[in-house]
């Protein structure tokens, strides 16, 4: 038998090559000369790789704009507007997270060489996930992403909670991966292919007499994805893991995993299973109602900042699902826009949480934020803006993120679910607002000052400035998400 190697369009896989290259460089360097790798060097390599991803995205964009979307490596990898924007978000997310982690490592006295390697590898998983056009590739990417994160969550070896969280995440994540691959197998059984385009083509041409296998497979894929994006009722790992993981990892995880998983989710649902919309829509309906309300409702009673933000991210996941529910171009664009705006916001929020956690990363009571804005107006004010943006206050990107998914849902005939989601949003808005108000309390003025190192300050400033500037000058990102989705692979 003769194996023919498939042709490779290297520009398409350049982002993951850059990330893996950075990881390998650090890996070899630290293996060969362990004493010579300083935190600074590791951070510089990671930052360079992530900037490379963003730069490559520009080249990819001009390539796709002139030649159209394409697939490569035997149609397993897609190069289209959607994947380009998603991988650029991963690049930006990695860059911001690295800066936060750098300061954290210095304070916590952690050697961050390994940290950078794992973060780079996990990011490459997220990028591949966004590009994957085949269920098997999605699975592999999901594993690359997850395995890196399992270790990162356990990175704080001095804290038992960190290891506990990692174990929980590993068990739950492993289970979710198993469910996912089983779903992929069933879909293969029903359609004879794992390639998303081929599945779509097959389902478009053929009427399944006994659709049970496909429905079961689709349902299992959905469960697998729901675990990864922490949609209720598959969310129970998220609060524990968010709380236990080192804070910079939590921010990284909250942004990168959501980008990778949602990008793949959009591709599977809208590209491969688009014809089965009537089957999965009702399931999504329930998922969205549960996810938005569980997130908003349980966040109300949290006393730990990281748990609270975990529930808040569950609530956000519910809104992102709303864009998927619509299942239209507008819906996919809305989810993409949500991801673009959410990533810097959540990383900047966790940057402040990291600072507040102190050298041991343990003081995370919501109570300890009382009066922050009175003690340190700049830091507290920035946190207030980030919280209001996450809540969806007008003239922040958070508002337009919610607006975009709601409008996509209404466009697709989902006015009732849009109203339900708005009710959940009002609950969520309330706990953000309450937290914001407590920042301005006057009865906690004697807490120690938080020192803000400049790399972290840069990340916070980036989050605050983008959310306000692009909350008023809405056009650029709205157009980007829209155009990226129009360049979607059919």
């Amino acid at each position: 038998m003769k194996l023919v190697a498939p042709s490779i369009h290297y520009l398409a896989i350049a982002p993951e090559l850059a990330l893996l290259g950075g990881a390998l460089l650090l890996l070899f360097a630290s293996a060969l000369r362990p004493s010579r790798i300083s935190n600074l060097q590791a951070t510089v390599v990671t930052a360079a790789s992530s900037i490379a991803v963003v730069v490559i995205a520009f080249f990819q964009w001009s390539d796709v704009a002139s030649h159209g979307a394409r697939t490569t490596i035997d149609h397993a990898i897609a190069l289209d507007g959607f994947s380009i924007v998603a991988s650029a978000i991963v690049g930006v997310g990695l860059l911001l997270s690295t800066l936060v982690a750098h300061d954290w490592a210095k304070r916590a006295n952690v050697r961050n060489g390994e940290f950078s390697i794992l973060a780079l590898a996990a990011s490459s998983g997220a990028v591949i996930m966004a590009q994957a056009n085949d269920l098997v590739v999605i699975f592999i990417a999901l594993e690359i992403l997850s395995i890196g994160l399992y270790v990162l969550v356990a990175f704080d070896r001095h804290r038992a909670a960190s290891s506990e969280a990692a174990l929980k995440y590993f068990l739950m994540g492993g289970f979710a991966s198993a469910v996912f691959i089983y779903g992929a197998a069933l879909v293969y059984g029903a359609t004879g292919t794992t390639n998303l385009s081929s599945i779509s083509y097959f389902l478009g041409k053929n009427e399944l007499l006994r659709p049970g296998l496909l429905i079961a497979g689709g349902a299992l894929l959905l469960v697998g994805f729901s675990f990864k994006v922490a949609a209720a009722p598959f969310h129970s790992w998220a609060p524990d893991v968010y709380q236990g993981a080192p804070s910079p990892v939590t921010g990284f995880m909250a942004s990168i995993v959501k980008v990778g998983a949602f990008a793949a989710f959009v591709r599977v649902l809208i590209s491969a299973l688009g014809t089965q919309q009537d089957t999965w829509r009702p399931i999504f309906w329930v998922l969205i109602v549960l996810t938005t309300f569980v997130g908003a409702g349980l966040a109300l009673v949290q006393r730990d900042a990281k748990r609270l933000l975990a529930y808040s991210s569950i609530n956000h996941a519910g809104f992102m699902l709303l864009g998927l529910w619509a299942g239209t171009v507008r819906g996919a664009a809305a989810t993409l826009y949500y991801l673009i705006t959410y990533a810097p916001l959540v990383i900047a929020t966790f940057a402040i949480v990291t600072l507040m956690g102190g050298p041991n990363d343990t003081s995370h009571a919501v109570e300890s934020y009382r009066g922050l804005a009175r003690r340190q107006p700049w830091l507290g004010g920035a946190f207030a803006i980030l919280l209001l943006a996450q809540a969806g206050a007008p003239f922040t990107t958070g508002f337009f993120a919610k607006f975009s998914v709601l409008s996509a849902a209404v466009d697709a005939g989902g006015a009732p679910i849009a109203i339900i989601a708005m009710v959940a949003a009002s609950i969520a808005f309330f706990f953000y607002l309450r937290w914001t108000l407590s920042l301005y309390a006057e009865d906690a003025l004697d807490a120690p000052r938080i020192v803000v190192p400049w790399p972290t300050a840069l990340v916070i400033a980036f989050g605050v400035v983008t959310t306000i500037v692009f909350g008023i000058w809405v056009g650029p990102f709205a157009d980007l998400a829209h155009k990226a989705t129009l360049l979607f692979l059919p």
Partner: protein
Amino acid sequence: MHSSLWLTALLVVPLLGMALLIAFRKVTKGAYIVGVATAAVELAISLVVLFLYNSGIKGAGTFDFAYRLIVAAPFGLAYDVAVSGISIVMIVLTAIVVVVALLGARETKHEVAFVCWMLFLLMATMGAFVSHDLLEFFLFFELTLVPSYFLIAQWGGPERARAALKFFIYTFFGSGFLLVGILYLGFAHLHQAGGDLNFSYGILSGTSLSHGTEVWLFIAFAISFAIKSPIFPFHTWSPIAYAEAPTSGSMVLSALLAKLGTYGLLVFAVGLFPLALHTIQPYVLTLAVIGILYGSALAAVSKDMKRLVAYSSLAQVGFITLGTVTGSKLAMVGAVLLMFNHGVITAAFFLIIGYIEKRRGSYLLADLKGLQGPAPVLAALFTVVMLASIGLPGLSGFISEFLILLGTFGTHQWWGIVATTGVLFSALYLLWAYQQVFQGKAEGPNATIKDVSGRERLIILPLIMLIVGLGVFPQPLLNRITPSVQQIVVHVAPTGVSK
């Protein structure tokens, strides 16, 4: 067509004031001056807009100062400003009330932050009134929540946290319906006409919808505006919010934010879904009349002055609602005029209550007695405002209520008859309150209070002048309101609602 820069200035000036405050936040003494100066500039600009406003521009409806800039095409988001004869009145009201509130109801605790939030609220309210685009209106409408929440929650009375929460949850819940309604309408238009997503008021008013859809959209819009106004039975947040808010907060809440609700009901609900009005009318009219009677009854048994004014506001908003939905031009003009007059009157009420509270440390009716002995001028000021609120001819309240009732009698006699009793009730509860607070023999701390100072008199003077002036000569406002109301009535008329 006048330059839209005037309207943009209305949005930019408060922001500049805020920037100045934040830049020099260490200089706490200057905050008061900067705040008042900014609001005064705002007032000056709004007066310029009032005088320049021309309702007769061809092809623009009755809109002037129009300008539209697409901000984000995929979202249908545009910066679209214009004023009509209705919004111009509200703009002037907004500027006046904020100037008076900043001057007369100063908060010395964290003054820089306080003034910042007030200016932010001023900007958001102005934004809502100059918006000529539904999405833009919604953004500003929603934005007003944030400063109001902080004003109540940080500078309010002992139960401020609960009051702020209740206020926030109710109004945010309502705005969900508004947003989904706006989106539905936008997409209905998009699917009909094609092109880009668009939420422009002028364009969406041309959408043809089935009767059922119009009714549902009207209801979605009306719920949101009814909560904000508040209209019975959506009012339960308002007494505690008005009572617990600081004086300036109560002034702004009742005089301005409530008007966002009634303004929205008239311009967006009635203006965009005139066909639905016919079906909805009996219900809304009934709620309005119940609001008038219920508000009056609760005002009569209120134990403190702020709640009394809050419930009397409920009754007044009942009149405004009545005028808005009767479909008669007279009543609608009266309703817009009452929005302005009620804004001025309640602002004056809360300012006077603030004066009393400052002297006595309480606004409970039980604590106050015989104040007219030691403070005759205060009593006189209260009397003027009270008589205007009752609707004494010659003062501003009369003309607007009279127009509303006159119009209502023409179209909906029976509702008109019941509503008219509300005028009597208002006389009853206000005179009663006057008796309790100002008459009798002042004893203890009541006997020694100081009368209003010259400065305080000067601050309330503009409001009193408006109350008296518009009572005698409302023509300048009526001239501007009438053509714009006519525009709305034209759409209502073919359905046979109007007579």
